[in-house]
C-alpha cells in the first residue's frame, strides 16, 4: 500500500513547486543575450542548487511551455551539438519585468521570515 507523505515531505514538494518556475526564469535571465536550451536549464538547475530542488528534468518542459504561453519566454531554434534542432529560450520584456518583481517579493519574504526566527 502506498504510504502517505509526511508533513515535511509534502511541505518540501509545495515549496519546490512554487520556487521552480522562478528558478527557471532566473536561469534564463542569466543567459539574456545567447538564451539557453532545455537541457542547459536542467544542468544549471542541478549544478547551481546542488540538486536542492530535486527536479525531475522532464517536468521542466511543461513549465517551459507554460512560461511561453504566459509570454514570459520566447523561443528560437538552433542546431544542437548532437544534431537535431533544439529550442533556445530567451526572456521576453514581460518575462524580465515579472522576474524582477518576483525577485523583490522573494527578497521581501526572506527578510520577513528572518525577522520571525
Amino acid at each position: 500500500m502506498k504510504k502517505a507523505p509526511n508533513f515535511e515531505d509534502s511541505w518540501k514538494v509545495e515549496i519546490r513547486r512554487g520556487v521552480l518556475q522562478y528558478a527557471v526564469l532566473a536561469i534564463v535571465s542569466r543567459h539574456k543575450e545567447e538564451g539557453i536550451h532545455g537541457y542547459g536549464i536542467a544542468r544549471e538547475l542541478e549544478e547551481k542548487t546542488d540538486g536542492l530542488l530535486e527536479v525531475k528534468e522532464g517536468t521542466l518542459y511543461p513549465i517551459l511551455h507554460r512560461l511561453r504561453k504566459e509570454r514570459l519566454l520566447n523561443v528560437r531554434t538552433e542546431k544542437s551539438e548532437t544534431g537535431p534542432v533544439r529550442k533556445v529560450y530567451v526572456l521576453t520584456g514581460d518575462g524580465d519585468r515579472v522576474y524582477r518583481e518576483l525577485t523583490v517579493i522573494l527578497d521581501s519574504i526572506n527578510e520577513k521570515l528572518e525577522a520571525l526566527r
Partner: protein
Amino acid sequence: MNEREITQTIEEYIKNVSRVLPSGFETEDMLEELRIHISEAFSDKIQKKPLANKIDLLREVLNDLGEPKEIAEEFKRTGVRLQEQGGDDEKAFWLIARFIINMVVVVAASWFVSNLPDAGISFYWALAVFLVFGLAEWFIRARQMREASRIEVQN
C-alpha cells in the same frame, strides 16, 4: 547494446510519455524536446564516463527525466492548454459550421432519395425524415462538445 536497442529504449520512453499526455500540437512539440534532451544528456554522460555501460548511462538519463506520469502530472498542474482545442469563438464557429454542413447534406440526401426510381417518397417527406436525423446528430455533437469543455475546465 547496439545503437538500434538504444534508439528503441528512447522511443519506448517517449511512447510511454505520449500515452499519458493529451494528444495535440503542444504535446508533440514537448515530446520532440524530450527526445533532444535525452540525446544531449546521453552524449554528455558518454563523454564524462566513456568506459561505462551505455545502457546504464541511458537508464540514468531516463531516471533523471522522471516517470512519464510525473511529467503528465506537471503538465496537468501547470495548466498547459492544448492549442488545437481553441477558444470559445473557435468552438462556436465549428458548431455553426457543422450545423450548416448538416443542413446541406440533408437537402442533398432528400433530393437524391426522392429522385431514385421507384423511391415512393416525395422530396418533402425525405427532407422531414433526414432533418430529424440531422438535428438529432447536431444536438448530440453539441452536447458532447460542452461535456468535453466541462471536463477540460475541471482538469
